[in-house]
């Protein structure tokens, strides 16, 4: 079982390396979306500091959603997905492996880039630390929740738009607590409560999302 998990993670990472444009689009989207705000809002540092958590988190949501479409769609089109569903491995494990690989490809770069982009918003080092922590805790939840939407819209025309309608509302709690944690820390209230909530959301989606995703995949693969 662990071997199958490892095989699928390595497979998806290898595919991402062979097809680098997929990773780069998400990452560049994140960079550009965040860099546009200071240009549009103007160089008023107080304003920038205030809007930074929200901007970072909204950009992370959109970037993560942008990458969702590719999570299962290519495997579905070339038949590897249906083969995965009829292997003697638990499908939840395989889905979890795919989501982990997806997060490593599209989530981790966002976490690592955030300190650099934070400089544009004159964030304090404390705020940047909390921002990284919340992104680190929150982006896996985004991938997990998004996987359900991606599985549900497999093979549908205009699936991309439908995914955003399905998934974005579900992302709202992550957005509120993620951005809230940074704001609370900066204002001196302490973000521990928000961060605990992010952790709870992650654990909940870790348990429930693979089950829902597998059920949706089985329906889509019929």
């Amino acid at each position, binding site marked *: 079982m662990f*071997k*199958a998990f490892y*095989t*699928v993670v390595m*497979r998806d990472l*290898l*595919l991402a390396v*062979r*097809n680098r444009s997929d990773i780069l689009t998400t990452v560049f989207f994140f960079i550009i979306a965040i860099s546009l705000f200071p240009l549009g809002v103007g160089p008023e540092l107080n304003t920038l500091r205030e809007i930074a958590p929200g901007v970072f988190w909204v950009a992370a949501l959109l970037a993560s959603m942008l990458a969702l479409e590719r999570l299962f769609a290519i495997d579905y*089109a*070339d*038949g*590897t997905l*249906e*083969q*995965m*569903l*009829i*292997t*003697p*491995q*638990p499908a939840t494990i*395989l889905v979890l492996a795919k989501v982990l690989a997806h997060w490593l490809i599209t989530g981790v770069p966002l976490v690592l880039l955030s300190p650099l982009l934070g400089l544009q918003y004159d964030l304090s080092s404390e705020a940047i630390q909390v921002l990284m922590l919340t992104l680190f805790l929150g982006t896996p939840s985004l991938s997990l929740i998004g996987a359900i939407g991606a599985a549900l819209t497999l093979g549908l025309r205009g699936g991309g738009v439908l995914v955003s309608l399905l998934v974005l509302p579900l992302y709202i709690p992550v957005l509120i607590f993620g951005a809230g944690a940074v704001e609370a820390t900066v204002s001196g209230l302490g973000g521990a409560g928000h961060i605990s909530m992010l952790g709870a959301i992650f654990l909940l989606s870790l348990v429930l999302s693979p089950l829902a995703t597998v059920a949706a995949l089985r329906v889509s*693969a*019929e």
Partner: protein
Amino acid sequence: MLEVNNLEVIRGDRSLFSELGFSLNTGELLHLLGHNGSGKTTLLRTLCGLIKPSQGVVSWKGMNIRRQRDEFALEMLFLGHLNGIKADLTAVENLRILSRLDGLDVSDDELWQVLEKMGLYGHEDLAVGVLSQGQKRRVSLARLLLSKSPLWLLDEPFTALDKAAVDFLQTVIAEHVENDGMVILTTHQDVGLTTGEVKQLRLGWKKDGDV
């Protein structure tokens, strides 16, 4: 071993087949016949558990396959219309991943040998995307040579293959049946077997020669 009882599958709002029943034992080959759209592929996908029948039961060793997904999956190999291989990976990589997911422990040497047997010598480490349609099919069919599953479900396995490959595949299938395997396949070609039994099942309402 494989038993089908009172099976009905509805796609959209049309019933493709109903009250379908047959059984398959070791050393038997079932040749599915029928005109285009008669439900051959749907039947195969139902038998491997991808499609849920609207009525009836497919059972393997006396138990519903939907109650024993993982056990059944271990003893069944399904090759569909889609090759199920990644265009960006090489033939060896594709085969390695597929056999690991099938729960097989295959060494790299074996993978290369199997691909050579399939007539892919010199193409093992090319991205599958650059291979021809027939060569892609050969990569996918190489799984048959590695498989330890008794039941093979093959959907049009001969498409895109050249004559030599068709003959080779015929012998592979014949050997599998001879060794107490079971094969269900759809094809518009004749299937010859030296030993074992060939059953035929005709789906649809049209007669031979009707368009």
